[in-house]
């Protein structure tokens, strides 16, 4: 195992190379572009063999990826922010065609205002379309998640595309030490992509014909997709265990818990911000306050059972939303409303408070998190949140 100091995008490029990807489709948009730059270099230098296709826009890029996948190739693509939104149509059909494309998303604020600071709305706005969604915390996890993504997406019981979400700047552009897996390890972990139905003249099928428009078939396909997501839960657990055995790095498949044992206040968080949240929790624990952090690693399929287990005994729950959801129930963010749904109906369900933070790439400091914990601790004592939503670090 070699230790190297690289950015998140370089880490992911190495995962793509280790996975022996066949087709890469590229189009530039910050902050994900670096992964494609690195892959272009690798292919040009003959470090690994892949068709590197330059697309004319994200729509074409994701369509190319989908079709290459349906022709039997292992595919990598990616985007960021509004670029991912430009590819909305292919994003929808990639999932419904059951093409196990793996994409990296360099999370970025949606335009306007033009800004490439991190926001998770680009990914979360597409949360319900059949993509498996992983959120990484750092470069190492981004690399590991990419390998996981292929394993889960291509599993015959799943066959869904997967998205590895990486915070702009904090993951994509920051150099961190990583352990580079050996290709033998990857071979042991990741079987070749092989599926029953694809574009093959020796076994011809028609893929994605039109179905009757008075309700004959489309409904059944929707139900199939739900089942694929259910299967994905199982496969993600299975693959995480294998991953730990083969690579020696153990990850909880869905949520990572930090100091939640007996916690009065728990913060739920996605992505790299969890680092400062954990530090805040550590400092408060040192002062005797019972606080903890839960980081969601897998957002789709949503870790409802895992969250229920951790949260029903908490005094108050805070959700950090680095996204927007205008006009939503109680004015909350996307993650908060999903968490609330997961807790609904539990007789001793804790109050849930939403903290908007970090939008547009604004830094969220350890002190900010300490502030959030203080609000939560009050709520835990009174079993009631004073407000549903707080905007942390906003100029009022």
């Amino acid at each position, binding site marked *: 195992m070699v230790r190297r100091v690289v950015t998140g995008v370089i880490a992911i490029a190495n995962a793509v190379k280790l996975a022996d990807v066949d087709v890469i489709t590229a189009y530039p948009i910050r902050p994900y572009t670096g992964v494609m730059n690195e892959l272009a270099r690798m292919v040009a230098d003959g470090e690994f063999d892949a068709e590197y296709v330059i697309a004319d826009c994200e729509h074409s890029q994701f369509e190319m990826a989908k079709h290459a996948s349906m022709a039997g190739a292992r595919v990598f693509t990616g985007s960021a922010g509004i670029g991912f939104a430009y590819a909305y149509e292919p994003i929808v059909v990639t999932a419904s065609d059951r093409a196990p494309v793996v994409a990296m998303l360099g999370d970025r604020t949606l335009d306007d205002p033009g800004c490439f600071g991190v926001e998770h709305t680009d990914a979360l706005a597409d949360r319900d379309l059949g993509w498996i969604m992983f959120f990484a915390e750092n470069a190492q996890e981004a690399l590991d998640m990419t390998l996981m993504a292929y394993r889960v997406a291509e599993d015959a019981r799943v066959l869904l595309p997967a998205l590895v979400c990486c915070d702009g700047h904090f993951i994509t552009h920051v150099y961190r030490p990583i352990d580079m897996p050996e290709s033998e390890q990857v071979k042991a972990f990741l079987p070749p992509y092989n599926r029953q139905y694809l574009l093959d003249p020796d076994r011809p099928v028609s893929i994605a014909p039109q179905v*009757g*428009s*008075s*309700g004959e078939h489309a409904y059944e396909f929707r139900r199939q997709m739900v089942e694929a997501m259910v299967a994905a839960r199982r496969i993600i657990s299975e693959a995480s265990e294998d991953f730990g055995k083969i690579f020696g790095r153990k990850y909880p498949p869905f949520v990572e818990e930090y100091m939640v044992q007996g916690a009065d206040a728990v913060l739920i968080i996605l992505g790299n911000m969890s680092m400062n949240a954990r530090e805040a929790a550590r400092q408060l624990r040192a002062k005797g306050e019972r606080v903890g952090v839960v980081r969601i690693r897998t957002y789709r399929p949503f870790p409802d059972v895992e969250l229920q287990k951790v949260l029903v005994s908490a005094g108050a729950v805070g959700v950090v939303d680095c996204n927007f959801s205008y006009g939503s129930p109680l004015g909350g963010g996307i993650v908060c409303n999903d968490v609330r749904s997961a807790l609904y109906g539990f007789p001793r369900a804790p109050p849930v408070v939403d903290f908007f933070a970090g939008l547009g790439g604004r830094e969220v400091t350890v002190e900010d998190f300490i502030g959030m914990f203080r609000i939560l601790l009050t709520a835990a004592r009174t079993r009631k949140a004073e407000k549903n939503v707080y905007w942390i670090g906003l100029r009022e």
Partner: protein
Amino acid sequence: MIEAIYVELWWLGMSVGDMKSVRVHARGVTQTSAATQLVRLIAEVAVMEGKDSMAWGYYNDSPDRINVPVKWYASVSSKPIVISPPYDPPVVEASVILEQALLKAWTTGEGVGGVDVMEGLSSKGVLAVNTESRFDELRCFLPKSDFSGRVVTLAASRMDRSLYVPMAAVVAHTTGIVSVKQLSDLVGKSLGEDKRLVIDRACKEALVEEV
């Protein structure tokens, strides 16, 4: 099972609203306009009579293709309609055939293509055909059924280029689903007084036969 419940709901709708439906069989593209206008006209006359109505085409037939058998419907009720428009009403009072070769559209057999013009036709209903032939000459084309209603034949294409005006007259005349007089008033007002004559002639020349 689902179908049975659905039919029951439909009948419930009928008993609540006294709903009666008409189905039009036509050829795609070349007759789509006539079929559309026919059901729209029936629905409009019904509204003039103070009834509630709806008219629609079979959703899967859209987009239509040249010569494909297409279906259009009109439902009329003396009380406000309280159920949503079905794709394909299971019972109709009249089955209107704008192109006579559609009578044998059932013979294609298995698959999506088969179209039975007698399907769901109420046993005392009306089969109205745009044809120059008499029913005796057409009988051999129909599938076996326990239909015991009336068959109406009229050379509507020759009578009026619109095709739908004389056929609407036939429907009104034989089923009473809307009144011929109201129909004539509306058509006279919107399409010209001479069209009233078409309606009179259609009612007179339509050959009504018991099966």
